[in-house]
């Protein structure tokens, strides 16, 4: 770095700032919006100077939405809870099913193993809308419509293929001989899976789990069709802000800030694993 001149360093700094502003501006703007009333948000031209208010957050937390026309009830916190429950449930279920399955696909080549793995991946190809109508009819018949279990089951369709295919790559990267060495030293295959394969694939499993969580968290269409008001996640719940008396931009912004928070916190916490996990597989090929 000692070769770079002062000018170069300044230019580089400016370039970095431009990039950061470009990517971060929408988020920054949303954060700013969340502290404003609809009036200040919608003024022309927009301005950075305003009197901050916590009214939006207060409305979300108390569940009372005051519009110019009337007072509405909203269930944002409940929606947030639903989002957490559905996403965590789906990811946990997918990890439970997907990690052993990924191990099996990576280690044992049996007749039709590729076909099964591909079939599971193909769930991701189908446009959700195509699946939804028959799915909701079926769910109503067997009583799974509008239940958490039914929703988690459907969410798991998003997570499982993702986890299966990412984690499988990690298991394939681990030399089977390491496991053989462990088994020949007197351990069963299950202990080997637990003590050798799982810890070695941990970064990959963490990365896959996090990605699956984000996908599940951001899902809209499945919950829109299959969940009633009290089981809706935030993505669907946000529709409540489109009221008869106008769109509540302030509350939408603060709802976004609150719903980004859990994923952001999780991503920051797992950042180390995520970068290591997603790049390690690519580098090792």
């Amino acid at each position, binding site marked *: 770095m000692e070769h770079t001149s002062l000018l170069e360093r300044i230019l580089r700094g400016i370039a970095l700032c431009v990039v950061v502003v470009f990517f971060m501006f929408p988020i920054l703007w949303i954060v700013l919006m969340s502290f404003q009333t609809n009036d200040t948000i919608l003024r022309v031209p927009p301005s950075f100077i305003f009197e901050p208010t916590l009214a939006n957050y207060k409305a979300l937390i108390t569940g009372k939405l005051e519009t110019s026309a009337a007072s509405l009830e909203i269930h944002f916190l409940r929606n947030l809870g639903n989002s957490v429950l559905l996403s965590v449930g789906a990811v946990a279920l997918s990890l439970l099913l997907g990690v052993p399955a990924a191990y099996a696909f990576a280690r044992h080549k049996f007749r039709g193993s590729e076909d099964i793995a591909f079939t599971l991946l193909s769930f991701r190809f189908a446009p959700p809308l195509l699946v939804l109508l028959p799915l909701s009819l079926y769910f109503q018949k067997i009583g799974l419509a509008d239940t958490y279990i039914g929703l988690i089951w459907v969410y798991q369709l998003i997570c499982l293929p993702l986890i299966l295919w990412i984690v499988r790559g990690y298991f394939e990267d681990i030399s089977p001989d*390491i496991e053989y*060495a462990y088994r*020949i030293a007197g351990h069963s295959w299950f202990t080997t899976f637990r003590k050798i394969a799982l810890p070695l694939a941990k970064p990959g499993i963490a990365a896959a789990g996090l990605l699956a969580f984000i996908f599940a968290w951001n899902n809209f269409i499945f919950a829109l069709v299959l969940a009633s008001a009290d089981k809706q996640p935030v993505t669907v719940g946000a529709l409540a802000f489109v009221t008869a008396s106008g769109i509540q931009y302030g509350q939408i912004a603060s709802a976004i800030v609150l719903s980004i928070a859990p994923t952001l916190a999780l991503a920051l916490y797992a950042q180390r694993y995520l970068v290591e996990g997603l790049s390690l597989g690519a580098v090792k090929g």
Partner: protein
Amino acid sequence: MSDPLLSIHAVDKFYGSVDTGVHAVRDLSMEVVPGEIVALLGSSGCGKTSTLRMIAGFEEVTRGSITLAGRELNKLPPVKRGVAMAFEGYSLYPPLNVRENIAFALKSSSFSKSEVAAKVEEIAAMLEISDILEKRPGAISGGQQQRASLGRALIRDADLHLLDEPMGQLEPQLRALLRGRMKHFIKSRGLTAILVTHDQAEANALADRIAVMEDGTLQQFDSPSAIKDRPANLFAGTFIGEPPMNTYHAKVNIEDNRIAFQLADSEEALRYDTAAFSTSVLDAARGCDHVIVGVRPYAVTRSDRGIPATVVVNQWLGDQTHIAADFAGATMIMVEHDRAIDKPGDTISVYLDPDSLHLFDPHSGEAISHGKELAREHSLKHPHELTPQAGELSQINAGHLTQ
């Protein structure tokens, strides 16, 4: 010989289905006695590692049976087979340091902590890795990882030690040193080991017997000196020995008391008194129209009685001279222990002593004779009795090696 510790009986290994899969090991039968070191030697893909992994239990035996110390291994999981193994790819546990990796092999044993520590120290000293015991596998070189992996295998008290290319990554100097130490270690403890290698020097130095494999088939299983002096077939003859054996297609003429090997594509012939061969060899030679004549490079001598050859290259390796010469339209490699002054283009006269000639059947590749002696198991086979497979194999080998 004592009762075998390990018996491999008529084992076949297919990867994939029996009809369309790869036939990696073909009808392999061999026995290893207690306290013996056996080397499986062959080029890549000859089935030696597959054999080792079938013994360890990492590959299923397609057909046949393997017995170790009275236990039928085919259906036993690796845990219960009583074997220890050093892997070609090291396969150390990344989260453990070298000391823990080596000690790990003793985890399920009854040794106390201090006994384990002493054993690890001893093995580490032997393998010259005492200074890296606290390091993790990721922080040490390939050669060091390989020695750690070898240590992890040797420290175990197993019926059979399987060593897959245990020294492939080591520098030549270290390899020579460790070969000696490892042999002493194995012999002094009465361990039995099977070593997979493609390095003949390693096989010769370590093994009591060498199993030469090619294309999934066991070519010869004998002591290093027997393989060198009495190769069972053309493959064993040309594969073992560095530089490789010179081979020439020749037509046999026996008249009165003279025998001549008329070299293919050439006016020259190797002529000898029939008295130089035993009658059984002469009888065998009479039965063949053609033979392949093989001679080891160090058995080629200079003599006025010999055949002229034109020097192509003269290489002094510091302790021996390798001369490549154009001999009867083919290449001849000759090894001399003194520094030779011949320059490329010079003509020398080379003589092949009848005692050092190996005759091979050009169709089957089987050895006919070694010097005066008839090859042990040679029977006069007529070409049409041969399996096409063996015939093809020998032709490929002969064609390749006489170029």
